[in-house]
């Protein structure tokens, strides 16, 4: 049987009748006539509502009264359609809006978000401006976003009593048609459930599993009963505008979700910037959930699912146009260092928040044109993490384009299994797996902090941990048990992953063909104990840092106060910080570790500290130690010009090229049957110099040989051909 889809949204109003609907207090005059019920062009249910006026000019908002509801952090889903785009202004002039209000009916304290306009909405089917047509679109708004327009007193989001939509009209239809103008249909909200909102799909069997198409079919049922506005489909790809849950903890039958060769996109609508997107797997003890994406047969993974976050394109700010909520005329300027300033409009209302990326162009100074990371945004100023800007006075010829990375989370709860084969995950902010899961030949990029918890991960590529909000990742993988890695995580690569693995439990770990490159640290030992990495089969972990997990007071010092922040002295790396939690007459009696630090050489206990109001405190830190064992072979085979092994008298030496003179050799031995070999603990590619000399008295002598090479994660092997020295005295 196909999957069964249920909605986790709460109905605000089905808009099947005008009952309860009224014009909002920001409606311009009464030029729009009455609110009318329309049955023919409805999106959902038996009817929709509309206003129509071919000649009206101004704003209209229509709200329905509701029992006071807390919409803090909620998402509203509102269906709207504007029949003649000619009558609707651009987004910046509030073409289409979602509104909420509180206070006396119909809500005198209102706030609105601009969500659509002639420039960004609709299907331009008409051949002239007058006949441009649009269709039904479900607009979603994150209620945490700042309003684009607000009454003198903003609504109280914790007690919203009116919810609605709105539109603006620019004038009369040039053809004189009495066109129906603006329609709206069902409105829902997600109950502030975060990943628990959206849609849930259950059931499905091996023979007839649940699929993404089932989600789409339910959302877009031909009877028009549902119209959840969560799942869309375009050019063969699914676009999701809300979270998906597969299976439930109370299900009375197994859930089997199987799909392959699909592309799933998180909707990049301009109205979203919060991190509520995600896929959650739940199951019941007797009725588990099994999700399979892609195929795995004869050890070959194929036909995977791609789940991608294209990023949320923000409104393009051109000095001359001002932005989404400001149609006026302004300029863009830079201040030396890290500030980009606008004179018209509001960065935050245009979606620019910490974590977004901006691309600037049109500035005279080349340094001001580029890609930058926003760390803070106010109405007029963006602060970026880069500090390379050069002061430039304002001008209207400059452009700022923004993109807000979208984050989605993957959570596999108990009694559920995810098998992902040849699949691609982009934008995964957090991933929580379990020991029954398997990821094979998957590509995970632009992500952060996946907890495998014993999942099988083989032949996967992890790249580009995203440290900026909303993903805010630090690690590729968080390892909480020795059994999470050995024989579980194999043949995988970690590239540009900031900190590739965080290990929280002491013990020995076998890294089988796990390769690392471009990471600040391959391993962060946050176990507080000894971690030993045994690298095999070409694994190349090289860099590590140890983190402080606890601190015990040795000497409490004098003059300290609670909340004092103390910085540890000593060691090599980023210093740990301790926060004083309790004191007795200025003497520290307890601290907590507020910053774990990252040490490549640990400080020596007892450690002293700087900072705080007092002096003299010392502590014993609990901090791990990390050992990487990665034995690879160095093998030098020596032959003569005839290709024969030279026997036992060739002297072979291998040195680090950087330190030959100190005589510390990696290999120094006579050949045995023409071969000299040893093992080397590989941490990084190591440049070496190889020397072979064979000048034993009474034997055949050869010219000395020297060459350079590199020990890689697979070791070093070379064959040296010696040339007879006929000059040397026999």
């Amino acid at each position: 049987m196909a999957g069964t889809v249920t909605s986790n949204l709460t109905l605000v109003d089905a808009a099947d009748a005008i009952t309860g609907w009224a014009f909002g207090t920001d409606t311009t005059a009464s030029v729009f006539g009455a609110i009318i019920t329309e049955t023919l062009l409805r999106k959902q249910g038996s009817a929709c509502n509309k206003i129509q006026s071919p000649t009206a000019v101004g704003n209209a908002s229509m709200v329905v009264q509701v029992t006071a509801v807390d919409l803090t952090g909620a998402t509203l889903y509102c269906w709207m359609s504007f029949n003649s785009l000619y009558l609707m202004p651009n987004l910046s002039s509030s073409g289409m809006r979602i509104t909420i209000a509180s206070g006396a009916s119909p809500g005198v304290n209102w706030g609105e978000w601009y969500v659509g306009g002639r420039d960004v909405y609709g299907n331009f089917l008409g051949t002239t401006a007058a006949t441009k047509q649009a269709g039904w679109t479900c607009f979603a708004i994150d209620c945490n976003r700042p309003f684009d327009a607000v009454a003198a007193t903003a609504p109280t989001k914790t007690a919203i009593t009116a919810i609605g939509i709105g539109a603006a009209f620019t004038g009369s239809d040039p053809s004189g048609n009495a066109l129906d103008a603006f329609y709206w249909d069902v409105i829902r909200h997600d109950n502030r459930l975060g990943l628990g909102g959206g849609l849930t799909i259950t059931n499905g069997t091996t023979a007839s599993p649940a699929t993404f198409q089932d989600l789409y079919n339910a959302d877009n049922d031909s009877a028009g009963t549902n119209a959840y506005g969560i799942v869309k489909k375009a050019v063969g790809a699914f676009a999701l505008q809300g979270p998906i849950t597969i299976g439930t903890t109370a299900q009375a039958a197994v859930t089997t979700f199987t799909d392959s060769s699909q592309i799933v996109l998180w909707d990049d609508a301009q109205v979203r910037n919060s991190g509520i997107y995600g896929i959650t797997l739940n199951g019941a003890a007797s009725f588990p959930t099994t999700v399979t994406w892609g195929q795995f047969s004869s050890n070959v993974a194929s036909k995977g699912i791609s789940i991608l976050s294209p990023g949320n394109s923000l409104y393009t700010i051109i000095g001359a146009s001002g932005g989404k909520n400001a149609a006026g005329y302004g300029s863009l300027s830079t201040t030396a260092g890290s500030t980009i300033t606008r004179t018209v409009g509001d960065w935050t209302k245009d979606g620019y928040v910490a974590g977004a990326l901006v691309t600037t162009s049109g500035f005279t100074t080349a340094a001001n044109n580029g890609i930058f990371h926003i760390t803070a945004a106010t109405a007029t100023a963006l602060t970026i993490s880069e500090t390379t800007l050069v002061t430039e006075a304002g001008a209207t010829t400059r452009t700022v384009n923004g993109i807000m990375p979208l984050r989605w989370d993957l959570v596999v709860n108990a009694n559920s299994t995810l098998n992902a084969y040849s699949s691609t995950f982009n934008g995964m902010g957090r991933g929580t797996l379990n020991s029954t899961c398997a990821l094979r030949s998957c590509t995970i990029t632009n992500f952060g902090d996946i907890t495998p918890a014993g999942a099988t991960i083989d032949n996967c590529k992890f790249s580009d941990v995203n440290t900026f909000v909303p993903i805010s990742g630090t690690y590729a993988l968080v390892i909480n048990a020795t059994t999470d890695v050995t024989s579980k995580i194999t043949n995988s690569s970690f590239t540009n992953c900031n900190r590739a693995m965080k290990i929280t439990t002491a013990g020995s770990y076998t890294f089988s063909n796990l390769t690392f490159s471009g990471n600040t640290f391959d391993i962060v030992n946050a176990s507080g104990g000894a971690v030993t990495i045994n690298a095999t089969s070409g694994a190349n972990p090289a860099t590590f840092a140890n983190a402080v997990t606890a601190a015990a007071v040795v000497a409490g010092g004098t003059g300290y106060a609670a909340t004092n922040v103390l910085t540890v002295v000593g060691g090599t790396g980023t210093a740990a910080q301790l926060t004083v939690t309790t004191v007795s007459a200025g003497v520290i009696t307890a601290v907590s570790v507020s910053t774990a630090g990252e040490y490549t050489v640990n400080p020596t206990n007892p450690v002293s500290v700087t900072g705080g109001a007092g002096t003299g405190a010392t502590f014993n830190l609990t901090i791990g130690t990390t050992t990487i064992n990665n034995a690879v072979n160095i093998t030098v085979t020596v032959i003569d010009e005839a290709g024969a092994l030279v026997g036992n008298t060739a002297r072979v030496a291998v040195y680090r090229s950087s330190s030959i003179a100190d005589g510390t050799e990696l290999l120094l031995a006579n050949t045995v049957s023409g071969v000299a070999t040893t093992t080397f603990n590989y941490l990084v590619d190591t440049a070496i110099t190889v020397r072979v000399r064979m000048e034993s008295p009474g034997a055949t002598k050869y010219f000395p040989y020297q060459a350079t090479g590199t020990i890689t994660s697979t070791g070093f092997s070379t064959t040296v051909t010696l040339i007879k020295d006929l000059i040397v005295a026999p």
Partner: protein
Amino acid sequence: MISNDFKIDFINKRVYYREDGSGKIYTVRELYSYLQETFAELKNMHYEIPIKAESFTKYTMINDWTIDEKARKYLKDGTLVVSSIVTEH
């Protein structure tokens, strides 16, 4: 025996003739052979080779190795190039 007369200062990369040497004169080829055997010993592998042969009679001190002016007087039957100095023996 050449090893009793010619000595090697590995630290300063210098070959010299002992003040109390036998006074015997050796061929440049004999010096070449002596040096090659010495530098092929395991304990000396980390030192750079001091000399190379271009023919039976032409040799060059290499890798910044030098040989004392006095020592050159105890060489014969060949040409030994030291840096840009060419000494006929």
